[in-house]
């Protein structure tokens, strides 16, 4: 049992770093994922993965493979896309999904252009997006800072965010904070995704944000338990995925996400708001 579960993390520093990094990311991005899901913006994470390309590529071309310039570049590109999409949806008739699609496509095309003009044929997507097994001190510090910032922001704006997610028109009618809160929230999304991409790879960053949130939705309707459950599911997936990757020599990123995917599928079936239970309750009602 010890050999199976604990030894890999005791014996190898890279496993400790992978665990620390992925758990820290989970702590910050799962709550953000819950809000994102409740706002029906679950797919924006994927869009954002493409949207940050021009910024990250510019950082790479100017400063080489250094995580700070690449992250700042990606952050700038991501914030521009998120703000642009948010502003269009706020101030015009177009909905957020359409404007997000438009902005990320523009950004992606620009990114491919920048990469190609430079003419380097080293696969930049591989260089830009890290892997969870190769976390150095810079990457860990970056994830830690992002998580701390995310948690603080969430704590301060919690009530406003809840109101904004559930009934944005109400919040705007009673407070001037509606629009700023929306943008602060989009900023958090970008921050978590960009940090995750640079350190852990696209798949892991988006997957850890959305899958635990989507799974937690099948267990509760109340927000606080949902957030706590999402973080718990994310953490379990990280540990399970890394152990699977270690014992069965599977690639680590996909292993972690598939672990979360299994939890999600199980939640659909067995969750208190999942298929089986709601069917059963339905039955009873009919009989009664």
């Amino acid at each position: 049992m010890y050999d199976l579960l604990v030894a890999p993390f005791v014996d190898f520093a890279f496993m400790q770093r992978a665990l620390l990094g992925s758990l820290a990311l989970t702590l910050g991005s799962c709550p953000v994922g819950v809000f994102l899901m409740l706002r029906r913006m679950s797919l924006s994470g994927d869009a954002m993965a493409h949207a940050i390309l021009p910024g990250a590529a510019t950082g790479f071309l100017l400063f080489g493979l250094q995580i700070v310039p690449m992250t700042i570049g990606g952050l700038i590109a991501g914030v521009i896309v998120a703000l642009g999409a948010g502003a269009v949806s706020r101030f015009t008739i177009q909905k957020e999904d359409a404007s997000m699609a438009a902005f990320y496509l523009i950004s992606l095309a620009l990114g491919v252009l920048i990469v190609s003009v430079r003419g380097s044929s080293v696969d930049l997507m591989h260089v830009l997006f890290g892997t969870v097994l190769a976390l150095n001190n810079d990457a860990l510090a970056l994830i830690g800072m992002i998580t701390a910032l995310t948690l603080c922001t969430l704590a301060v704006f919690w009530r406003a965010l809840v109101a904004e997610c559930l009934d944005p028109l109400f919040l705007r009618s009673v407070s001037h904070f509606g629009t700023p809160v929306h943008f602060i929230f989009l900023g958090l999304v970008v921050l978590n995704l960009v940090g995750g991409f640079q350190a852990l790879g696209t798949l892991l960053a988006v997957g850890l944000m959305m899958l635990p949130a989507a799974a937690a939705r099948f267990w509760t309707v109340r927000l606080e338990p949902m957030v706590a459950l999402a973080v718990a599911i994310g953490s379990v997936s990280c540990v399970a995925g890394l152990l699977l990757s270690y014992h069965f020599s599977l690639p680590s990123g996909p292993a972690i996400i598939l672990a979360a995917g299994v939890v999600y599928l199980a939640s659909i079936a067995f969750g208190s708001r999942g298929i089986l239970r709601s069917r059963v309750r339905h039955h009873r009602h009919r009989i009664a």
Partner: protein
Amino acid sequence: MMKNLRTSIVLAVILGAVAVAFPASAKDLKVVASFSIIADFARNVGGDRIELTTLVGPDGDAHVYEPKPADAVAMAAADVVLVNGLRFEGFLQRLVDASATKAAIVELAKGAEVITMGIHDHEAESGSTPHGHGPGDVDPHAFQSIPNAEIYVSNIAEAFCTADTDGCDHYHANAEAYKAKLKALDAEVRASIGSIPPDKRVVITSHDAFGYLGHEYGITFLAPEGMSTEAEASAADVAALIRQVKGDKASAIFVENVTDPRLVEQIASETGLKLGGTLFSDALSAEGGPAPTYIVMMRHNITAIRGAVIGS
């Protein structure tokens, strides 16, 4: 002076137009090489009789290269297209189809001694399975062994001869001269590696590109990433490598010019092994870099390996 210049420009334009209109009458043999190492061979064999275009340039990764329209144009106009073969250039077949080239596609690895994945000693030792390519697949990096490089050069000379019979003697003479240099290099490499104690000849690189070098000269190369640069590493592979180093089995660690160095750096920092520098695997460096030609590249790699192993 001015007038002279203008005349020569006009002349050049006319000549250029003629050359484009009648490609067969152009003096130079138009050769397309798929990546920088093959281009270097072709330059040595063809000399000034060929006009060379290289698709994947210095420090480029031919595993994941995305062709540009200019590549298709060059290919359509080519007389001879030189490729490695053995499915090394993943982009190639699509490009050949798209350009509708009539040139002969020459697979240089034909006739070379090939090794298959899964028969390396280290596969059994580390317990890792290769990604991307299954066991039993042929390792395409055949040019990393110098006897194979000689076969590449012979194949190039044959291909040039077929396309341009007038220059046949020229190509053969060049090829012989270059092969003599390769033979000397081969002896030099053997002597250099011979001076390393056999139990010290285990080296870590980022992707599995040095199978031939290891097979030919008796060095074991371990890599977390497998044969293609596209595969992702697993925690088990990385842990196996770290165990090898800690068991004093591997004595040097290197990054390559075409791959992400972070994973190898992580292994180095965890084991306390110092990075031995950069090895050149699938591409030469730019002109003026540490490995602008094949011969210099091989010498650079061997010197770096020997230095790091002896130093440890």
